[in-house]
């Protein structure tokens, strides 16, 4: 198949290119076509200078100084930019934290005996969490302990007192906690206005943002951004962390394993079910039910060899990490999976799901099944998922897929013969185990300079950037510089597809990292989970800081979201920066219209938190800048002279 130059500019992934070419040849619309039709996009929006908060608006600030310099209410460019930016943080923190509420509620249901469809798979992890929270774990009934942990977690969402979240106190390194308190005190003294940094309630900080960005409340760029930081910390060290930790308890803490990635995991001879979205609650069940003999037998009766469940996006990462279920692709491949003509059913829950899938699936035999009470997709089939009837719902979905197998049109099936193997499952626990039970060997490698530092990369994909290009080129450039790369979300899928998560890829790493990979038998790029699992990276950073007796910002760590798209990424970037890790972004976030906001995020943050944002379009230049940050931190630690 000849791939056009245009398709080549859309994706570097060979499987995606094949299907994109097919789509182009058959005039099938994808996100790339729709984005093209959106051009030109609004410059005011791009700069963050359009305010739609009240009905006097929309107001726009003229970035060239000729027209209006204030909104109708008098809001300046910086007020407008800051208000809209922290609303993005609020939405991102809400998405990830609301995700975390679900396993917390489920754990409570399990503990109270109200849910028989799920159990506690990992009591050891439960005890570890309880231990961190200061609960006694000796000779405790597991369900009783689970109830206590779930209650503390749920309390963190909705508590009304002024105290810091229990999970934040339990997981954040002590030095960082003290630093945040000091920052809040200093900012309050400087501005003679109380400014808080430590989150009090996960939901509350999000509501606080919506309140203070309402017409006529908070207009100070610093005050607004500080609240954005507070809500993001409630997400990173709160809601997201609760999601990861309690999912590990219910579904198991990921262990190192092998799995396949890319569209080639779809099977021509089996019933293909793609689970897409973010939460593991339903996808776990679909995997379990589909593997059962009852469903496999039903599939054979329909002329298929069996049922093949594959993941897409972060719900895919969840089951990939825990069960090695193959993953069909990342965000920009959701439409491409359907265009292969080989998908009997795509089941979705929440986040990052294109509404366009409904219309697209109608052009194929694919059933597009929505399952969440929070997410309706006009044109989809809705099967309401209820946790207390999880087995029943999952069986209904799998059966529907199997019965759709005979509707498949073989002449329309085109599955790219492209997959790559990846070593996945690097939870913090799995990493520590690989290191021999303590973080010391990793620290030793960092101290000796074999590993210069660690960069954490997170999704998304964004069609404004050639699909997977930045993810892969940045990771390659970093490992070549002896920088260990860890990450999650759509980046992790891109890296798995590109073969960067194989032991053999260590040959492309610098000599130091190569040696470490060989000694520990790990690849140079580590898959740490879904995007909600960015909390795993925080926990790892915390563990390294605690072991060394330093703060996180002393460590040679950098973060990056090089193809970012979602509001979740804004919250993630902010909690990393506030935790002391500088974060690279591409594309440019909508803040360039506010000089003060730009200064706060790219310069002041460095002085206050020890980490700041930076923007860079070129992967090699970004890698260079990261190496510089790492070198500076190493010098300050006395590791290099």
């Amino acid at each position, binding site marked *: 198949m000849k791939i056009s130059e245009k398709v080549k500019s859309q994706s570097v992934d060979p499987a995606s290119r094949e299907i994109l070419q097919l789509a182009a040849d058959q005039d099938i619309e994808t996100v790339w076509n729709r984005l093209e039709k959106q051009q*030109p996009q*609004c*410059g*005011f929006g*791009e*700069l963050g200078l359009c305010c739609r908060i009240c009905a006097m608006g929309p107001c*726009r600030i*003229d*970035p*060239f*100084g*000729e*027209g209006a310099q204030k909104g109708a209410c008098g809001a300046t460019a910086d007020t407008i930019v800051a208000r809209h930016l922290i609303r993005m943080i609020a939405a991102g923190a809400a998405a990830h934290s609301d995700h975390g509420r679900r396993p917390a509620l489920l754990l409570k249901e399990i503990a109270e005996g109200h849910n028989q469809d799920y159990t506690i798979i990992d009591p050891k992890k439960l005890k570890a969490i309880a231990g961190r929270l200061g609960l006694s774990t000796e000779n405790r009934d597991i369900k009783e302990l689970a109830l206590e942990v779930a209650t503390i977690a749920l309390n963190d969402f909705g508590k009304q007192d002024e105290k810091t979240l229990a999970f934040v106190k339990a997981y954040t390194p002590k030095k960082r906690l003290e630093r945040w308190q000091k920052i809040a005190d200093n900012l309050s003294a400087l501005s003679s206005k109380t400014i808080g940094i430590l989150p009090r309630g996960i939901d509350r900080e999000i509501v606080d943002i919506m309140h203070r960005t309402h017409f006529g409340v908070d207009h100070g760029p610093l005050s607004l951004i500080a609240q954005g930081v507070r809500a993001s910390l409630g997400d990173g060290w709160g809601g997201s962390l609760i999601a990861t930790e309690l999912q590990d308890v219910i579904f198991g803490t990921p262990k190192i394993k092998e799995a396949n990635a890319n569209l080639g995991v779809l099977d021509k001879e089996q019933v293909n079910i793609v689970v897409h979205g973010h939460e593991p609650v339903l996808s776990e069940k679909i995997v379990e039910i589909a593997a059962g003999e009852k469903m496999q037998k039903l599939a054979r009766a329909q002329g298929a060899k069996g049922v093949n469940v594959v993941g897409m996006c972060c719900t895919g990462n969840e089951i990939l990490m825990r069960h090695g279920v193959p993953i069909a692709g990342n965000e920009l491949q959701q439409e491409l999976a359907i265009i292969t003509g080989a998908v009997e059913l795509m089941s979705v829950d929440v986040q990052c799901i294109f509404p366009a899938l409904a219309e697209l699936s109608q052009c194929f035999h694919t059933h597009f099944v929505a399952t969440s009470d929070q997410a309706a997709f006009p044109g989809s089939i809705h099967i309401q998922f209820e946790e207390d009837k999880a087995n029943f719902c999952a069986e209904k979905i799998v059966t529907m897929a199997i019965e759709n197998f005979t509707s498949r049109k073989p002449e329309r099936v085109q599955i790219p013969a492209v997959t790559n193997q990846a070593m996945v499952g690097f939870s913090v626990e799995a990493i520590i185990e690989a290191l021999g039970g303590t973080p010391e060997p990793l620290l030793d490698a960092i101290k000796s300079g074999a590993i210069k530092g660690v960069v954490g990369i997170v999704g998304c994909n964004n069609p404004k950037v050639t699909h997977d290009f930045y993810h892969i080129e940045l990771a390659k450039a970093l490992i070549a510089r002896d920088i260990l790369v860890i990450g999650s979300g759509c980046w992790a899928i891109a890296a798995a597809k590109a073969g960067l998560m194989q032991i053999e890829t260590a040959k492309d790493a610098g000599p130091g990292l190569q040696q470490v990979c060989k000694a520990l038998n790990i690849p140079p790029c580590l898959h740490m989970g879904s995007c909600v699992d960015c909390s795993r990276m925080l926990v790892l950073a915390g563990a390294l800081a605690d072991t060394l007796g330093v703060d996180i910002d002393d460590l040679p760590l950098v973060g990056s979201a090089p193809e970012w798209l979602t509001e979740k990424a804004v919250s993630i970037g902010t909690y990393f920066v506030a935790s002391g890790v500088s974060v690279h972004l591409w594309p*440019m976030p909508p803040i*360039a*219209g506010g000089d003060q906001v730009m200064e706060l995020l790219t310069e002041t943050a460095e002085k206050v938190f020890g980490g700041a944002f930076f923007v860079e379009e070129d992967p090699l230049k970004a890698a260079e800048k990261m190496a510089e940050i790492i070198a500076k931190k190493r010098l300050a630690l006395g590791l290099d002279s």
Partner: protein
Amino acid sequence: MKELLIRAERCLGCRSCELACAVEHSTGKSLLSAINEDPRPQYRVHVTSDGNSSLPLQCRNCEDAPCLTACLTGALHQDARGIVLCNSDLCIGCWMCLMVCPFGIISQNNHERRIVKCDRCPDLEIPACVTACPSGALIYREIDQESREKRLDVLHQLLNSTL
């Protein structure tokens, strides 16, 4: 030759044309760099609104341009395309051109007492404001084509009214 035409009923007042015009007349030619240039680049198209309707208005580049006649120093001149350009070295800021312009599209350069006006983007095939317009309020086409389409519209209207 193509002409820059306005379909005022399509203008949503988004001012994308203004931003694109300023970017095209900047050094860096990108929005992100243009907003930080000193002197700031200026746009030469103005979305004029009375609160109900908007009109994205730029120099009409009249053939027998009154501004040309009014310019005493010869700063204003017509290029081979028929576009009226200003040689700013000769401009003395007398505003005669503004006074005679039927459209009011002559502006003041924001860092010196000289005029600034549309040059119809000599480096571009399609003027920046036209490319930037998301709703088709600005178009760039041959007059023949435009008038033919208008006549077709009239035909369809007549057919519809007689049916």
